[in-house]
């Protein structure tokens, strides 16, 4: 079975085509185009306009890259939520148009669950991981328990990427700031004390953001602030992930989301996993960031487990929670 997936929850529009081969995910193509605001953060309507402008060409490009024909596609899936309304609607509209014109079934999928399933689908030994999902808007620790993907820990205020971006904006960096902060942090020498806020398996960043901005206003070295921010937030993220692993008694950890590209975060989680005797997995970069292949793969899993969706049921859900999905494709 071949599925074409359309991702469009936030700044990225992605078209991925995947095929199932003996239960594993075979990515045939995965084309991503990212909206970059000239200044400031993501304006939802402008991001949606960007997606609408490019989606048709990207679909053609993805079909070509996959070496398939439109008639080979068996299923169309799209990111149903969570995300920014205008962006979600653009992706959903494109999916409905394709589904109706090709006369192929449609499937709306949960974006956060897709980040986890793409790890399980593409990495051989990754079977039952705890996912640390870190992106701009999302920071969640997700694991499978009692028939659902449950959120064991999450941010109580802003996502980690959002925290880094907001700091970056306050000190004059372009969006996204994460990679710039990572570079500067490498030159950090002195650790500046920052709030370390975890509540059980939940986490909060806004106090740390304010404190970091205050250090900047007081004229502390930017490199030291970036270093201290990374060390503190990533240590807290690693700690809540480890807590979730201990709590759920799982011995696999998977990274997902844009912030998982950060080398320091990877190193920390990997070290934690090694100390626990657990296995550490991270998908390739294009499958870690928002992408269409993961949407296609989850749609395919759902369809194969017997789930069906009519076009009139394909409404988007900006607040689509991870634990609202009935996971019928796993035991």
């Amino acid at each position, binding site marked *: 079975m071949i599925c074409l997936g359309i991702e469009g929850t936030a700044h990225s529009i992605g078209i991925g085509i995947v095929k199932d081969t003996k239960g594993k995910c075979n990515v045939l193509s995965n084309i991503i185009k990212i909206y970059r605001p000239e200044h400031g953060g993501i304006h939802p309507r402008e991001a949606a306009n960007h997606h609408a402008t490019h989606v048709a060409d990207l679909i053609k490009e993805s079909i070509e890259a996959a070496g398939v024909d439109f008639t080979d596609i068996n299923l169309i899936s799209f990111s149903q*939520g*969570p995300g920014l309304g205008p962006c979600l609607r653009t992706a959903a509209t494109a999916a409905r148009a394709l589904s109706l014109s090709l006369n192929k079934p449609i499937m709306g999928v949960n974006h956060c669950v897709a980040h986890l399933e793409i790890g399980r689908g593409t990495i051989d030994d990754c079977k039952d991981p705890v996912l640390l999902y870190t992106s701009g*808007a*999302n920071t969640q620790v997700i694991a499978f*328990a*009692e*028939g*659902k993907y*449950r*959120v*064991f820990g*999450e*941010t*109580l205020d802003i996502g980690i990427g959002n925290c880094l971006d907001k700091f970056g904006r306050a000190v004059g960096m372009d969006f996204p700031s994460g990679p710039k902060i990572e570079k500067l942090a490498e030159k950090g020498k002195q*650790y500046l*004390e920052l709030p*370390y806020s*975890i*509540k*059980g398996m*939940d986490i909060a960043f806004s106090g740390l953001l304010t404190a970091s901005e205050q250090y900047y206003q007081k004229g502390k070295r930017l490199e030291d602030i970036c270093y201290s921010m990374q*060390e*503190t937030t990533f*240590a807290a993220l*690693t*700690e809540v992930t*480890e*807590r979730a*692993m*201990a*709590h759920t008694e799982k011995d696999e950890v998977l990274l997902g989301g844009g912030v998982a590209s950060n080398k320091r975060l990877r*190193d*920390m*989680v990997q*070290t*934690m996993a090694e*100390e626990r005797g657990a296995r550490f997995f991270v998908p390739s970069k294009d499958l870690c960031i928002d992408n269409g292949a993961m949407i296609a793969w989850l749609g395919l899993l759902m369809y194969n487990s017997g789930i069906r969706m009519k076009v009139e049921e394909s409404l988007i859900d*900006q*607040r*689509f*929670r991870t*634990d609202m999905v009935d996971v019928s494709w796993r035991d």
Partner: protein
Amino acid sequence: MTEKTILYRGAEAEICLSNYMGYKSVQKRRVRKAYRIKKIDDRLILSRTKGETKLIAEARKQGVSVPIVYDVDLKDGIITMEYIEGKRIKDIFNDLNKKERIDICKKIGVSIARLHNGGIIHGDVTTSNMILANDRIHFIDFGLGEKNSEIEAKGVDLHLLMEAIESTHSKYSDYFSYVLDGYKKELKEDANLVIQKIEEIVKRGRYR
């Protein structure tokens, strides 16, 4: 201490069997984490060991069952305390009969209210951190706790338990209301303010 028998390896500490002047005891040893820098590691181990010891003592004063602390080693982050012979609520919760489960939930609520009456926030109220022994629920692991009398902190504390019951005992997620029954009965201030706060926290969470 010669050899150590590890009873449980948690995320931040090892629980080892020990003997303190003839008493069967456990040692909670906070483990150094190679993933974080030494400054953060030192600060967390010291403040949590210190804070936990203090909160255990205060919880006892409020009438909440907790292990007796025998010794504290701040340098190495080790607390030696009473061994509580019992069962974790997490392990027995799903197998209880309805009446027992309601009773346990109410008792949990009463104990949390007593902690909150004393301005104690547990900080990690999950069923893994409660041990049933001699018909009493013992609270352990105050490592993420703090002294705080604000409604917000109390709400976050209860919200944690609500989430823990939802994720670990999903079949019985509605039993959280019995926890609140016990809590209302025991809390000195108006429990409805805290309950309203829980609703607010739920809505504040992402995608609610």
